[in-house]
């Protein structure tokens, strides 16, 4: 196994103040099968960290543990200095207000229109906003994802790419500080995948978010990554920048980057 080296991290970023997520020795198993084994990683302020890996390597489990949807069996997850595992439901709810999560399926609420989908988190997280301010915010994010016309449509009237973009709009509408993307380009055609990757970069620049992008789409990784981590059997197999991965002679890495 290749020894992980963080050659993509600049000295300024290694400062602990810049660490927004810090995971140490994370362990998680399902039905006796260990999915994550002593996994450790950090996410720094303003960076796009791409987590690559085969299906079943524990990528989605990792971000679900970060947001507290799954409880790990061991290790610690610190988000903005708070240990996720020790938070009570109210504090966890407060922490989640700072985190945006894009689900693989989009997870749009089927019974609500696009506008109601975007209003849902806004009403709960940005309670101080007036109706006019909410409407303005919804219009702004829909324009950012290029779907201002879809405001009154139902999710069933949207294509796969449109659903992903609306889902992205719903996530950024509350101005999160961290974005967690679960397979953002899976099931999309190459053109729409490129559009989503560009949107991820646009969000990073505009909203100054730190992001973890879970994917096995190399094109998405190429376009969005500041740093890449490859997971294999629940462990970090290789960590570095895009160049390091592309120059690697390791058969597993080569099979991804051919």
């Amino acid at each position, binding site marked *: 196994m290749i020894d992980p080296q963080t050659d993509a991290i600049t000295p300024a970023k290694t400062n602990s103040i810049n660490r927004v997520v810090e995971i140490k020795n994370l362990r998680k198993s399902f039905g006796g099968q260990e999915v994550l084994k002593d996994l450790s990683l950090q996410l720094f302020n303003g960076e796009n960290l791409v987590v690559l890996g085969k299906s079943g390597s524990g990528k989605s489990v990792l971000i*679900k543990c970060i*947001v507290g*949807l799954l409880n790990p069996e061991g290790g610690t997850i610190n988000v903005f200095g708070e240990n996720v595992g020790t938070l009570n*439901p109210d504090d966890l*709810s*407060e922490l*989640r*207000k700072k*985190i945006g*999560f894009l*689900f*693989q*399926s989009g*997870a*749009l*609420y*089927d*019974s609500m229109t696009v506008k109601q989908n975007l209003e*849902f*988190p806004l009403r*709960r*997280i940005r309670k101080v906003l007036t109706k006019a301010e909410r409407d303005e915010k919804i219009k702004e994010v829909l324009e950012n994802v290029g779907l201002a016309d879809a405001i009154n449509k139902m999710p069933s009237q949207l294509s796969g790419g449109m659903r992903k973009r609306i889902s992205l709009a719903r996530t950024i509408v*509350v101005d999160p500080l961290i974005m967690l993307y679960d397979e953002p380009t899976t099931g999309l055609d190459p053109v729409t995948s490129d559009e989503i990757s560009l949107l991820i970069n646009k969000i990073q620049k505009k909203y100054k978010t730190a992001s973890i992008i879970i994917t096995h789409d190399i094109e998405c990784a190429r376009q969005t990554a500041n740093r890449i981590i490859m997971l294999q059997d629940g462990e970090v197999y290789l960590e570095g920048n895009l160049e390091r991965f592309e120059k690697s002679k390791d058969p597993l890495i080569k099979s991804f980057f051919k």
Partner: protein
Amino acid sequence: MKKNFAPVTRLVPDLHKAKEISMKLSEKTLAGTAEASNFLTDFADVLLFITRTVKETFSRNFEFREFLLQCFQIGNKTLPLISVTGIIMGLVLTIQSRPSLAKFGADAMLPGMVAVSLIREMGPVITALICAGKIGSGMGAELGSMKVTEQIEAMEVSSTNPMRFLVVTRVLAATLMIPILILYADALGIIGSWIGANIKGDVTFTLFFSQAFSHIDFIDFVPAFIKSIFFGAVIGLVGCYKGYNAGRGTESVGIAANSAVVLASLLVLIVDVIAVQITDLL
């Protein structure tokens, strides 16, 4: 005296047979233990779900808008079905009972008999069974599909408590609306009975109603209304429990909807038996 024992070689097949039987027995015992363990786990899950629902009902930040929306959904969407069911209940009961009563010259008892049986038993139970099919399966399928498509998790990460938003509102809406639907079905049942009485006779609406209500006391309504509240709570809880705890695959949605109907219908009948026993004691 020398005893003759069977040679060891002859005993070997018997030992094999005994071993097979003991293995089968132990497998059955283990399967039985696993089943008992699963049953206890499910039972504990149900109790935990009910406890969480009750706890969340009395917590702050009640989702009033969603509660009103669910009341509207349950009432509005079930109304046509309940209307038809109510009228048919009264009509059929009248047509079926009339010949038997006529034999004893007790035609005049018909409105009262139909009204008492509708209000005390048939109205609540049949309406609740229809609601179990329509509302229980709807809740099971809706929450089940939300679980499969990660919508419940999306709610959680949006700092929304899905138990409070999805479960509490639906259970309370069912508990409130189903008794109202039952009263509505009772009223339509009496109208249906009047229509049935007029197929082979001629009785005015006013006379039929006054005869029907002359046999009913306020006390006839109370136990029926109380059990209707329990029917509503049972249907809401079962529908939400099955949907909320659906598996991950798409087939789980169908399973959740189906098992919600079966279990809710069964529990409605069990609650009815208990309610009848309690009413009988009073």
